């Protein structure tokens, strides 16, 4: 077994009494107090997550935006400077290598943030496509710490420690200083709430973490993060997305911009090749979990749950489920098989919870 990695904030988590579990090769805090209290803190006031395990790649040079635009399906070239863009990263056959965020820091300067479990895979994939683009491409994951301050009070709280904090738009980014040290500040996150992600050197981010915790921001673990992202129906790689599916299979057709001149997977994705569709299911009774079969009214299996939990906001069972398109029931009646018992599930069109981001 390989040694689990630890973020720079590991000792802080231990001091705060966190329960630590292995996640994507890392020893990460799964919860500090209670999953419910942590999730509700983010919905109602503010919470802070250590997401230092995530990967940061930097593209610097004339072709930085062009290279990023070629790699991913979403439109990078036409987005303004200072914008953050969510996108799948696909292969020529349309399958998803990872989902990520491209940050346009400045002309000729781009940061790409990827899932912890995929850092090596993504870097090797991107590196293999780098030839011919006039920019550097560097993995700086080990040099950066990252924390996410999330919740409706994020701006008000962050303003107390970064005095000249501008009221950035959601999905914007800028480079500034904290305690005299450079940081990248992005109004992004994985909870659907307003919030900021703070990238910087390990010691700088540690200082920011300590100041936020001292300001009574609730430290939150990966468990609450997973519930929060599921409530607002954000996909998670390894669950809704994987090496076998394409963006259309996961309801991410909106991120594929066929109008772009060229990008990896463009040809195949032009035909919108979906074998599956991702649906949102809500249960009055029973908690759906990953892998549980999804049934039609005749109790035939039509798909399975990719992520499931109980919503801390609604108290209902909630699930994202991958349904085979050729078996999708016309009457839209679904049940979830929980321990060999079918539980009625309501198909919903909107996210289970509406996040309060700007």
């Amino acid at each position, binding site marked *: 077994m390989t040694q689990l990695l630890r973020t720079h904030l590991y000792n802080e988590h231990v001091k705060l009494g966190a329960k630590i579990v292995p996640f994507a090769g890392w020893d990460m805090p*799964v*919860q500090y107090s*209670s*999953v*419910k209290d942590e999730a509700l803190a983010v919905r109602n006031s503010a919470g802070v997550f250590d997401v230092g395990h995530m990967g940061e790649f930097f593209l610097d040079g004339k072709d930085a935006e062009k290279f990023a635009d070629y790699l991913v399906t979403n439109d990078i070239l036409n987005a303004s400077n200072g914008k953050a863009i969510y996108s799948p990263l696909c292969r020529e056959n349309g399958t998803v290598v990872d989902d990520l965020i491209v940050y346009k820091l400045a002309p000729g300067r781009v940061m790409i943030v990827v899932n912890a479990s995929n850092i090596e895979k993504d870097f090797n994939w991107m590196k293999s496509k780098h030839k011919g683009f006039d920019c550097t491409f560097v993995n700086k994951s080990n040099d950066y710490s990252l924390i996410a301050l999330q919740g409706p009070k994020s701006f008000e709280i962050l303003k107390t420690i970064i005095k000249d904090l501008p009221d950035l738009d959601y999905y914007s980014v800028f480079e500034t200083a904290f305690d005299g040290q450079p940081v990248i500040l992005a109004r992004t996150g994985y909870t659907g709430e307003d919030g900021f992600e703070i990238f910087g050197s390990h010691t700088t981010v540690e200082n920011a973490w300590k100041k936020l915790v001292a300001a009574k921001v609730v430290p939150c673990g990966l*468990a609450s993060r*997973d*519930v929060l992202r599921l409530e607002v129906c954000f996909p998670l790689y390894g669950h809704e997305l994987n090496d076998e599916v394409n963006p259309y299979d996961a309801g991410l057709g909106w991120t594929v911009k066929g109008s772009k001149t060229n990008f990896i997977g463009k040809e195949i994705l032009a035909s919108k090749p979906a074998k599956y569709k991702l649906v949102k299911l809500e249960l009055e009774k*029973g*908690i759906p*979990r990953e892998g549980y079969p999804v049934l039609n009214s005749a109790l035939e299996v039509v798909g399975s749950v990719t992520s499931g*939990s*109980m919503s*801390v906001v609604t*108290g209902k069972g909630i699930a994202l489920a991958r349904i085979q398109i050729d078996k999708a029931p016309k009457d839209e009646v679904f049940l979830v098989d929980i*321990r060999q018992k079918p539980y009625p599930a309501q198909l919903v069109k909107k996210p289970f919870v509406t996040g309060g981001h700007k």
Partner: protein
Amino acid sequence: MATNIPANLQYTKEHEWTLLSGDTVTIGITDFAQSSLGDIVFLEVPEVGSEIKSGSTFGVVESIKSVSDLYSPVTGEVIAKNTDVEASPDKINADAYGAWLIKVKVKNTDELKNLLSPAQYQEFCNTSH
């Protein structure tokens, strides 16, 4: 982990507590179990009148993020279930030893001889996480 282990109960390695009274065993989950699980949000226990078997699962307890089976330490008939706790499973977090789950009329009280004493259970909790 510091945990509350009442002296008048007997325990299983699956972190259930039992209380024998005549030929009836009351079963719940321990303070250690509720604390490990976190916010308990769902409980499934068998209907009154059903038979349960020693060593088999008889129900499920779920926290927001996890599902755990409940294992019966005895064979017998379920003669009561705690509908209050079924309706509000968070009562287990508040008081694990007050929030009993089911009462079972046992066929053979000898089965209870294999259960852990409070001291043995404390030792078990100390060595397993």
